Protein backbone atom coordinates (compact mmCIF):
# COMPACT_ATOMS: atom_id res chain seq x y z
CA UNK A 1 0.00 0.00 0.00
CA UNK A 2 1.45 3.35 -0.95
CA UNK A 3 1.42 5.89 1.86
CA UNK A 4 -0.33 9.22 1.67
CA UNK A 5 1.54 11.84 3.69
CA UNK A 6 -0.68 14.73 4.76
CA UNK A 7 1.18 15.92 7.84
CA UNK A 8 3.29 18.64 6.27
CA UNK A 9 2.67 20.90 9.26
CA UNK A 10 4.77 18.46 11.29
CA UNK A 11 7.54 18.12 8.75
CA UNK A 12 8.11 17.73 5.03
CA UNK A 13 10.09 15.35 2.91
CA UNK A 14 13.38 16.92 1.83
CA UNK A 15 13.20 17.72 -1.86
CA UNK A 16 15.60 15.56 -3.92
CA UNK A 17 17.19 18.76 -5.22
CA UNK A 18 17.83 19.80 -1.63
CA UNK A 19 19.51 16.53 -0.78
CA UNK A 20 21.57 16.73 -3.96
CA UNK A 21 22.70 20.24 -3.07
CA UNK A 22 23.72 19.16 0.43
CA UNK A 23 25.69 16.02 -0.34
CA UNK A 24 28.86 17.65 -1.70
CA UNK A 25 29.17 19.52 1.59
CA UNK A 26 29.43 16.22 3.42
CA UNK A 27 31.45 14.32 0.88
CA UNK A 28 33.78 16.90 -0.57
CA UNK A 29 33.61 20.46 0.73
CA UNK A 30 33.95 19.66 4.39
CA UNK A 31 35.94 22.77 5.32
CA UNK A 32 35.35 25.12 8.21
CA UNK A 33 34.05 28.43 6.87
CA UNK A 34 36.32 30.28 9.29
CA UNK A 35 39.50 28.71 7.87
CA UNK A 36 41.55 30.93 5.63
CA UNK A 37 42.80 28.20 3.29
CA UNK A 38 41.02 27.36 0.09
CA UNK A 39 39.20 24.32 1.52
CA UNK A 40 37.69 26.52 4.21
CA UNK A 41 36.90 29.23 1.72
CA UNK A 42 34.76 26.85 -0.35
CA UNK A 43 32.57 26.50 2.72
CA UNK A 44 32.59 30.27 3.26
CA UNK A 45 31.41 30.79 -0.32
CA UNK A 46 28.57 28.33 0.22
CA UNK A 47 27.65 30.07 3.45
CA UNK A 48 27.48 33.48 1.82
CA UNK A 49 25.50 32.21 -1.15
CA UNK A 50 23.07 30.48 1.21
CA UNK A 51 22.60 33.65 3.24
CA UNK A 52 21.66 35.49 0.06
CA UNK A 53 19.17 32.78 -0.99
CA UNK A 54 17.42 32.76 2.37
CA UNK A 55 17.38 36.57 2.47
CA UNK A 56 15.79 36.62 -0.99
CA UNK A 57 12.91 34.42 0.15
CA UNK A 58 11.77 37.00 2.72
CA UNK A 59 12.94 40.22 1.06
CA UNK A 60 15.86 40.79 3.43
CA UNK A 61 19.56 41.62 3.11
CA UNK A 62 22.00 38.72 3.56
CA UNK A 63 23.62 40.32 6.60
CA UNK A 64 20.22 40.27 8.28
CA UNK A 65 20.03 36.45 8.26
CA UNK A 66 21.38 34.44 11.23
CA UNK A 67 21.51 30.69 10.80
CA UNK A 68 20.28 28.64 13.75
CA UNK A 69 19.44 25.04 14.59
CA UNK A 70 15.78 25.53 13.64
CA UNK A 71 12.57 27.34 14.40
CA UNK A 72 12.77 26.67 18.11
CA UNK A 73 16.18 28.24 18.47
CA UNK A 74 15.20 31.18 16.24
CA UNK A 75 12.23 31.90 18.51
CA UNK A 76 14.40 31.55 21.63
CA UNK A 77 17.06 33.85 20.19
CA UNK A 78 14.53 36.51 19.23
CA UNK A 79 12.79 36.58 22.59
CA UNK A 80 15.65 35.96 25.02
CA UNK A 81 18.13 37.91 22.90
CA UNK A 82 15.99 41.05 23.04
CA UNK A 83 14.91 40.48 26.64
CA UNK A 84 18.44 40.24 27.99
CA UNK A 85 19.64 43.24 26.03
CA UNK A 86 16.68 45.45 26.90
CA UNK A 87 15.96 44.37 30.45
CA UNK A 88 17.06 47.74 31.76
CA UNK A 89 14.74 49.70 29.52
CA UNK A 90 11.65 47.53 29.93
CA UNK A 91 10.43 44.14 31.04
CA UNK A 92 7.13 43.70 29.25
CA UNK A 93 6.53 41.40 26.26
CA UNK A 94 3.27 40.89 24.35
CA UNK A 95 2.44 37.61 22.65
CA UNK A 96 -0.69 35.60 21.86
CA UNK A 97 -2.35 32.61 23.52
CA UNK A 98 -1.98 30.45 20.40
CA UNK A 99 1.77 30.64 19.84
CA UNK A 100 3.88 27.54 19.23
CA UNK A 101 5.46 26.13 22.43
CA UNK A 102 8.82 27.47 21.19
CA UNK A 103 7.48 30.97 21.87
CA UNK A 104 5.03 30.20 24.69
CA UNK A 105 7.50 28.30 26.83
CA UNK A 106 10.23 30.87 26.19
CA UNK A 107 7.77 33.47 27.46
CA UNK A 108 7.08 31.33 30.52
CA UNK A 109 10.82 31.10 31.14
CA UNK A 110 11.16 34.87 30.87
CA UNK A 111 8.18 35.30 33.18
CA UNK A 112 9.96 33.16 35.76
CA UNK A 113 12.93 35.47 35.35
CA UNK A 114 11.16 38.70 36.13
CA UNK A 115 9.53 39.68 32.84
CA UNK A 116 5.86 40.49 32.50
CA UNK A 117 4.06 38.77 29.63
CA UNK A 118 0.68 39.71 28.18
CA UNK A 119 -1.01 36.92 26.24
CA UNK A 120 -3.56 38.51 23.91
CA UNK A 121 -6.61 36.36 23.14
CA UNK A 122 -7.91 35.23 19.74
CA UNK A 123 -11.46 35.13 18.39
CA UNK A 124 -13.27 31.89 17.63
CA UNK A 125 -11.51 31.65 14.25
CA UNK A 126 -8.09 32.15 15.77
CA UNK A 127 -7.50 35.78 14.85
CA UNK A 128 -5.68 38.25 17.07
CA UNK A 129 -7.33 41.67 17.20
CA UNK A 130 -4.63 44.33 16.65
CA UNK A 131 -6.57 46.62 18.99
CA UNK A 132 -5.92 44.18 21.84
CA UNK A 133 -2.22 44.33 21.09
CA UNK A 134 -2.27 48.11 20.96
CA UNK A 135 -4.15 48.32 24.25
CA UNK A 136 -1.60 46.06 25.91
CA UNK A 137 1.40 48.26 25.02
CA UNK A 138 2.85 50.15 27.99
CA UNK A 139 5.93 52.26 28.64
CA UNK A 140 7.59 49.06 29.73
CA UNK A 141 6.91 47.06 26.52
CA UNK A 142 10.08 46.00 24.68
CA UNK A 143 8.82 43.36 22.27
CA UNK A 144 5.73 42.00 20.53
CA UNK A 145 5.88 38.42 19.24
CA UNK A 146 2.86 37.18 17.28
CA UNK A 147 3.07 34.22 14.91
CA UNK A 148 2.39 34.79 11.21
CA UNK A 149 0.42 31.57 10.63
CA UNK A 150 -0.66 29.11 13.27
CA UNK A 151 0.79 25.61 13.04
CA UNK A 152 -2.43 23.85 14.06
CA UNK A 153 -5.33 25.73 12.46
CA UNK A 154 -3.40 27.70 9.83
CA UNK A 155 -4.98 31.07 10.69
CA UNK A 156 -2.95 33.94 9.21
CA UNK A 157 -2.58 36.91 11.55
CA UNK A 158 -2.72 40.58 10.49
CA UNK A 159 1.02 41.00 11.12
CA UNK A 160 1.26 44.08 8.85
CA UNK A 161 -1.15 45.95 11.10
CA UNK A 162 0.43 44.77 14.32
CA UNK A 163 3.96 45.47 13.07
CA UNK A 164 2.99 48.95 11.99
CA UNK A 165 1.42 49.83 15.29
CA UNK A 166 4.38 48.32 17.17
CA UNK A 167 6.71 50.66 15.32
CA UNK A 168 4.47 53.67 15.89
CA UNK A 169 4.92 52.97 19.58
CA UNK A 170 8.63 52.27 19.35
CA UNK A 171 8.29 48.57 20.19
CA UNK A 172 10.19 45.78 18.40
CA UNK A 173 8.17 43.22 16.44
CA UNK A 174 8.97 39.52 16.02
CA UNK A 175 6.94 36.97 14.09
CA UNK A 176 7.28 33.20 13.96
CA UNK A 177 6.87 32.56 10.24
CA UNK A 178 7.89 28.91 10.38
CA UNK A 179 4.55 27.80 8.93
CA UNK A 180 3.93 30.66 6.50
CA UNK A 181 7.27 30.91 4.73
CA UNK A 182 7.14 29.13 1.40
CA UNK A 183 3.34 28.84 1.50
CA UNK A 184 2.27 32.47 1.24
CA UNK A 185 4.32 35.53 0.30
CA UNK A 186 6.44 36.65 3.25
CA UNK A 187 8.27 39.96 3.06
CA UNK A 188 9.86 41.48 6.12
CA UNK A 189 9.17 45.05 4.99
CA UNK A 190 5.54 44.42 4.03
CA UNK A 191 5.04 42.69 7.36
CA UNK A 192 6.82 45.49 9.20
CA UNK A 193 8.78 43.10 11.42
CA UNK A 194 12.20 43.40 13.04
CA UNK A 195 12.69 39.68 13.49
CA UNK A 196 11.25 36.62 11.77
CA UNK A 197 11.78 32.90 12.43
CA UNK A 198 12.27 30.31 9.68
CA UNK A 199 12.70 26.53 9.84
CA UNK A 200 14.10 24.44 6.98
CA UNK A 201 12.24 21.20 7.57
CA UNK A 202 8.81 22.77 7.03
CA UNK A 203 9.77 23.78 3.49
CA UNK A 204 11.23 20.53 2.16
CA UNK A 205 14.62 21.24 3.70
CA UNK A 206 16.61 19.29 6.29
CA UNK A 207 15.77 19.08 10.00
CA UNK A 208 17.82 20.88 12.64
CA UNK A 209 18.49 24.06 10.68
CA UNK A 210 16.69 27.38 10.47
CA UNK A 211 17.23 31.09 10.44
CA UNK A 212 16.31 34.23 12.27
CA UNK A 213 15.94 37.41 10.27
CA UNK A 214 17.14 40.38 12.35
CA UNK A 215 16.60 43.83 10.84
CA UNK A 216 19.74 45.87 10.35
CA UNK A 217 20.37 47.99 13.44
CA UNK A 218 18.41 45.70 15.77
CA UNK A 219 20.75 44.51 18.47
CA UNK A 220 20.22 41.35 20.47
CA UNK A 221 22.30 39.34 22.86
CA UNK A 222 23.66 35.98 21.74
CA UNK A 223 22.42 32.92 23.63
CA UNK A 224 25.63 30.98 23.07
CA UNK A 225 29.02 32.41 23.72
CA UNK A 226 31.96 31.29 21.62
CA UNK A 227 33.70 32.33 18.43
CA UNK A 228 32.23 35.30 16.59
CA UNK A 229 30.14 33.30 14.11
CA UNK A 230 26.96 34.71 12.60
CA UNK A 231 27.89 38.34 13.26
CA UNK A 232 28.42 37.57 16.92
CA UNK A 233 24.78 36.53 17.35
CA UNK A 234 25.17 32.76 17.28
CA UNK A 235 28.51 31.14 18.01
CA UNK A 236 29.49 27.70 16.75
CA UNK A 237 30.98 26.31 13.55
CA UNK A 238 28.29 26.60 10.94
CA UNK A 239 26.30 23.55 9.83
CA UNK A 240 27.21 24.09 6.19
CA UNK A 241 25.37 21.10 4.66
CA UNK A 242 22.24 22.00 6.59
CA UNK A 243 22.49 25.67 5.69
CA UNK A 244 22.99 24.79 2.01
CA UNK A 245 19.90 22.58 2.28
CA UNK A 246 17.86 25.37 3.84
CA UNK A 247 19.01 27.76 1.12
CA UNK A 248 18.11 25.34 -1.67
CA UNK A 249 14.72 24.73 -0.09
CA UNK A 250 14.21 28.50 0.17
CA UNK A 251 15.14 28.95 -3.48
CA UNK A 252 12.73 26.21 -4.59
CA UNK A 253 9.98 27.55 -2.36
CA UNK A 254 10.31 31.01 -3.89
CA UNK A 255 10.22 29.60 -7.42
CA UNK A 256 7.24 27.37 -6.77
CA UNK A 257 5.28 29.56 -4.39
CA UNK A 258 2.54 30.62 -6.82
CA UNK A 259 2.04 27.18 -8.33
CA UNK A 260 2.16 25.38 -4.99
CA UNK A 261 -0.20 27.83 -3.32
CA UNK A 262 -2.86 27.69 -6.02
CA UNK A 263 -2.69 23.90 -6.23
CA UNK A 264 -2.92 23.48 -2.48
CA UNK A 265 -5.76 25.97 -2.13
CA UNK A 266 -7.86 23.94 -4.54
CA UNK A 267 -7.03 20.67 -2.77
CA UNK A 268 -7.71 22.30 0.59
CA UNK A 269 -11.05 23.77 -0.41
CA UNK A 270 -12.13 20.53 -2.00
CA UNK A 271 -11.15 18.49 1.06
CA UNK A 272 -13.02 20.84 3.39
CA UNK A 273 -16.13 20.97 1.23
CA UNK A 274 -16.31 17.22 0.66
CA UNK A 275 -15.69 16.34 4.30
CA UNK A 276 -18.23 18.79 5.66
CA UNK A 277 -20.83 17.66 3.10
CA UNK A 278 -20.39 13.96 3.59
CA UNK A 279 -19.91 13.74 7.36
CA UNK A 280 -22.74 14.95 9.59
CA UNK A 281 -21.76 17.00 12.64
CA UNK A 282 -18.34 17.85 11.25
CA UNK A 283 -16.94 21.35 11.52
CA UNK A 284 -14.04 23.43 10.24
CA UNK A 285 -11.65 24.81 12.86
CA UNK A 286 -9.95 28.12 12.19
CA UNK A 287 -10.65 30.85 9.67
CA UNK A 288 -12.49 30.11 6.40
CA UNK A 289 -10.32 32.43 4.27
CA UNK A 290 -7.39 33.81 6.29
CA UNK A 291 -5.90 30.36 6.23
CA UNK A 292 -2.71 28.66 5.03
CA UNK A 293 -3.23 27.12 1.56
CA UNK A 294 -2.32 23.67 2.88
CA UNK A 295 -4.31 23.55 6.14
CA UNK A 296 -7.49 21.52 6.65
CA UNK A 297 -8.52 21.32 10.30
CA UNK A 298 -11.74 19.51 11.09
CA UNK A 299 -13.56 18.22 14.11
CA UNK A 300 -16.11 15.46 14.38
CA UNK A 301 -18.50 15.08 17.29
CA UNK A 302 -18.56 11.89 19.40
CA UNK A 303 -15.20 10.48 18.26
CA UNK A 304 -11.66 10.79 19.58
CA UNK A 305 -8.78 12.00 17.42
CA UNK A 306 -6.10 9.47 18.23
CA UNK A 307 -8.41 6.66 17.15
CA UNK A 308 -9.21 8.55 13.97
CA UNK A 309 -5.52 9.08 13.33
CA UNK A 310 -4.67 5.42 13.92
CA UNK A 311 -7.44 4.15 11.68
CA UNK A 312 -6.32 6.53 8.94
CA UNK A 313 -2.77 5.29 9.48
CA UNK A 314 -3.96 1.73 8.91
CA UNK A 315 -5.31 2.95 5.58
CA UNK A 316 -1.92 4.43 4.77
CA UNK A 317 -2.80 8.05 5.55
CA UNK A 318 -0.60 10.16 7.87
CA UNK A 319 -2.26 13.14 9.63
CA UNK A 320 -2.26 14.61 13.14
CA UNK A 321 -4.74 15.55 15.88
CA UNK A 322 -5.22 18.06 18.69
CA UNK A 323 -6.52 15.36 21.00
CA UNK A 324 -4.89 15.16 24.41
CA UNK A 325 -4.62 11.41 24.04
CA UNK A 326 -1.98 11.76 21.39
CA UNK A 327 0.12 14.44 23.07
CA UNK A 328 3.02 13.76 25.39
CA UNK A 329 1.54 16.09 28.00
CA UNK A 330 -1.98 14.59 27.78
CA UNK A 331 -3.19 18.19 27.52
CA UNK A 332 -5.67 18.96 24.75
CA UNK A 333 -4.53 21.55 22.22
CA UNK A 334 -4.15 25.01 23.77
CA UNK A 335 -4.91 26.49 20.36
CA UNK A 336 -8.29 24.80 19.98
CA UNK A 337 -9.10 25.60 23.61
CA UNK A 338 -8.33 29.28 22.90
CA UNK A 339 -10.97 29.23 20.13
CA UNK A 340 -13.53 28.25 22.75
CA UNK A 341 -14.02 24.69 21.47
CA UNK A 342 -15.18 22.43 24.33
CA UNK A 343 -12.69 19.72 25.41
CA UNK A 344 -14.72 16.76 24.15
CA UNK A 345 -14.78 18.35 20.70
CA UNK A 346 -11.07 19.17 20.82
CA UNK A 347 -10.46 15.46 21.26
CA UNK A 348 -12.29 14.84 18.01
CA UNK A 349 -10.14 17.13 15.91
CA UNK A 350 -7.96 16.25 12.97
CA UNK A 351 -5.29 18.27 11.18
CA UNK A 352 -4.61 17.51 7.54
CA UNK A 353 -1.71 19.52 6.14
CA UNK A 354 -1.14 19.19 2.42
CA UNK A 355 2.09 19.28 0.48
CA UNK A 356 3.09 20.00 -3.07
CA UNK A 357 3.06 16.32 -3.97
CA UNK A 358 -0.49 15.55 -2.83
CA UNK A 359 -3.14 15.01 -5.49
CA UNK A 360 -6.92 15.37 -5.81
CA UNK A 361 -7.21 11.57 -5.96
CA UNK A 362 -5.46 11.37 -2.60
CA UNK A 363 -7.77 14.00 -1.15
CA UNK A 364 -10.78 12.00 -2.34
CA UNK A 365 -9.38 8.80 -0.86
CA UNK A 366 -8.73 10.50 2.47
CA UNK A 367 -12.25 11.96 2.62
CA UNK A 368 -13.80 8.60 1.72
CA UNK A 369 -11.71 6.92 4.41
CA UNK A 370 -12.77 9.55 6.92
CA UNK A 371 -16.45 9.00 6.18
CA UNK A 372 -16.05 5.30 6.84
CA UNK A 373 -13.88 5.69 9.96
CA UNK A 374 -16.01 8.36 11.62
CA UNK A 375 -19.07 6.18 11.08
CA UNK A 376 -17.31 3.16 12.56
CA UNK A 377 -16.08 5.07 15.62
CA UNK A 378 -19.45 6.71 16.17
CA UNK A 379 -21.14 3.33 16.16
CA UNK A 380 -18.72 2.35 18.91
CA UNK A 381 -19.07 5.54 20.94
CA UNK A 382 -21.31 5.76 24.03
CA UNK A 383 -21.85 9.49 23.50
CA UNK A 384 -23.25 9.25 19.97
CA UNK A 385 -26.94 10.20 20.25
CA UNK A 386 -29.37 7.40 19.36
CA UNK A 387 -31.66 8.03 16.42
Amino acid at each position, binding site marked *: MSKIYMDHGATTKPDPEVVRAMLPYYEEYFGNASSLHSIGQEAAVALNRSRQQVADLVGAQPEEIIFTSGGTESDNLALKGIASLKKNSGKHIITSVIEHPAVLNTCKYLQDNGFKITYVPVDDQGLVNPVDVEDAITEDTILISIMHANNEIGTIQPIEEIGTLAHERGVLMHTDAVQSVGKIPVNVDDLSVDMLSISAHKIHGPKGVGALYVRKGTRLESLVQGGGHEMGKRAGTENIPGIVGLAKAAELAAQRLDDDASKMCSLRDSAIKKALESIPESYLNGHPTRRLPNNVHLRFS*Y*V*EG*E*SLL*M*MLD*MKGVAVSTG*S*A*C*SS*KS*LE*PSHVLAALGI*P*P*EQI*HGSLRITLGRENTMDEVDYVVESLVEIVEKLR*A*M*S*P*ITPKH
Partner: protein
Amino acid sequence: MYSKKVMEHFSNPRNVGEIEDADGVGEVGNPVCGDMMTIYIKVDDGKLTDVKFKTFGCGAAIATSSMITELAKGKTIEEALEISRDDVADSLDGLPPIKMHCSNLAADGLHAAIEDYQNKNKSK
Protein backbone atom coordinates in the same frame (compact mmCIF):
# COMPACT_ATOMS: atom_id res chain seq x y z
CA MET B 1 4.21 2.83 20.35
CA TYR B 2 1.41 0.27 20.79
CA SER B 3 2.00 -3.48 20.92
CA LYS B 4 0.80 -5.74 18.11
CA LYS B 5 -1.89 -7.09 20.42
CA VAL B 6 -3.22 -3.61 21.15
CA MET B 7 -3.30 -2.82 17.43
CA GLU B 8 -5.04 -6.11 16.74
CA HIS B 9 -7.80 -5.41 19.28
CA PHE B 10 -8.05 -1.79 18.18
CA SER B 11 -8.51 -2.65 14.52
CA ASN B 12 -10.80 -5.57 15.22
CA PRO B 13 -12.53 -4.93 18.55
CA ARG B 14 -14.52 -7.83 20.08
CA ASN B 15 -18.00 -7.49 21.56
CA VAL B 16 -18.79 -3.94 20.53
CA GLY B 17 -22.30 -2.74 21.28
CA GLU B 18 -25.00 -2.60 23.89
CA ILE B 19 -26.94 -5.33 25.65
CA GLU B 20 -30.56 -4.18 25.55
CA ASP B 21 -31.67 -6.03 28.69
CA ALA B 22 -28.33 -5.89 30.51
CA ASP B 23 -28.24 -7.04 34.14
CA GLY B 24 -25.56 -4.48 34.96
CA VAL B 25 -24.17 -1.37 33.29
CA GLY B 26 -20.94 0.39 34.26
CA GLU B 27 -19.99 3.80 33.01
CA VAL B 28 -16.51 5.22 33.66
CA GLY B 29 -14.41 8.11 32.40
CA ASN B 30 -15.51 11.39 30.94
CA PRO B 31 -15.54 12.63 27.36
CA VAL B 32 -14.02 15.90 28.58
CA CYS B 33 -10.88 13.96 29.49
CA GLY B 34 -10.90 12.10 26.19
CA ASP B 35 -11.90 8.63 27.37
CA MET B 36 -15.27 7.23 28.34
CA MET B 37 -16.58 3.70 28.30
CA THR B 38 -19.77 1.84 29.07
CA ILE B 39 -19.64 -1.87 29.90
CA TYR B 40 -22.77 -4.04 29.73
CA ILE B 41 -23.03 -7.43 31.42
CA LYS B 42 -25.51 -10.27 31.33
CA VAL B 43 -25.44 -12.54 34.38
CA ASP B 44 -26.80 -16.05 34.64
CA ASP B 45 -26.34 -18.29 37.66
CA GLY B 46 -23.48 -16.17 39.04
CA LYS B 47 -21.65 -16.21 35.69
CA LEU B 48 -21.05 -13.46 33.13
CA THR B 49 -22.70 -14.94 30.06
CA ASP B 50 -22.27 -11.85 27.91
CA VAL B 51 -20.13 -8.70 28.10
CA LYS B 52 -20.26 -5.81 25.63
CA PHE B 53 -18.82 -2.32 25.45
CA LYS B 54 -19.11 1.09 23.92
CA THR B 55 -16.10 3.37 24.08
CA PHE B 56 -15.15 6.90 23.17
CA GLY B 57 -11.41 7.27 23.34
CA CYS B 58 -7.95 6.58 22.05
CA GLY B 59 -6.51 3.35 20.71
CA ALA B 60 -5.65 2.12 24.19
CA ALA B 61 -9.15 2.82 25.48
CA ILE B 62 -10.72 0.81 22.66
CA ALA B 63 -8.23 -2.06 22.92
CA THR B 64 -8.59 -2.39 26.71
CA SER B 65 -12.39 -2.35 26.37
CA SER B 66 -12.24 -5.12 23.82
CA MET B 67 -9.80 -7.12 25.96
CA ILE B 68 -11.88 -6.87 29.12
CA THR B 69 -14.90 -8.36 27.37
CA GLU B 70 -12.77 -11.36 26.39
CA LEU B 71 -11.27 -11.71 29.85
CA ALA B 72 -14.59 -11.44 31.66
CA LYS B 73 -16.87 -13.55 29.50
CA GLY B 74 -17.66 -16.90 31.12
CA LYS B 75 -16.14 -15.92 34.46
CA THR B 76 -18.01 -15.97 37.77
CA ILE B 77 -18.74 -12.66 39.46
CA GLU B 78 -15.99 -13.35 41.99
CA GLU B 79 -13.45 -14.16 39.28
CA ALA B 80 -14.43 -11.10 37.28
CA LEU B 81 -13.98 -8.83 40.29
CA GLU B 82 -10.39 -10.12 40.52
CA ILE B 83 -9.48 -8.83 37.05
CA SER B 84 -7.27 -5.79 37.55
CA ARG B 85 -6.10 -2.95 35.36
CA ASP B 86 -2.70 -4.60 35.24
CA ASP B 87 -4.22 -7.87 34.05
CA VAL B 88 -5.81 -6.04 31.14
CA ALA B 89 -2.57 -4.29 30.25
CA ASP B 90 -0.58 -7.53 30.57
CA SER B 91 -3.01 -9.42 28.34
CA LEU B 92 -2.37 -6.77 25.69
CA ASP B 93 1.41 -7.22 26.01
CA GLY B 94 1.62 -3.91 27.83
CA LEU B 95 0.51 -0.33 27.28
CA PRO B 96 2.62 2.80 26.87
CA PRO B 97 3.25 4.18 30.40
CA ILE B 98 1.40 7.40 29.63
CA LYS B 99 -1.76 5.39 28.80
CA MET B 100 -1.73 3.27 31.95
CA HIS B 101 -3.59 5.81 34.00
CA CYS B 102 -6.10 7.58 31.76
CA SER B 103 -7.04 5.01 29.16
CA ASN B 104 -6.83 1.80 31.14
CA LEU B 105 -10.35 2.14 32.50
CA ALA B 106 -11.82 -1.12 31.33
CA ALA B 107 -11.35 -3.04 34.60
CA ASP B 108 -13.03 -0.18 36.46
CA GLY B 109 -15.86 -0.26 33.94
CA LEU B 110 -16.38 -3.98 34.43
CA HIS B 111 -16.33 -3.62 38.23
CA ALA B 112 -18.84 -0.77 38.00
CA ALA B 113 -21.13 -2.96 35.89
CA ILE B 114 -20.91 -5.76 38.45
CA GLU B 115 -21.61 -3.32 41.27
CA ASP B 116 -24.65 -2.08 39.38
CA TYR B 117 -25.84 -5.67 39.00
CA GLN B 118 -25.30 -6.37 42.69
CA ASN B 119 -27.10 -3.18 43.77
CA LYS B 120 -30.09 -4.02 41.56
CA ASN B 121 -30.28 -7.52 43.00
CA LYS B 122 -29.95 -6.36 46.60
CA SER B 123 -33.00 -4.13 46.27
CA LYS B 124 -35.11 -6.94 44.81
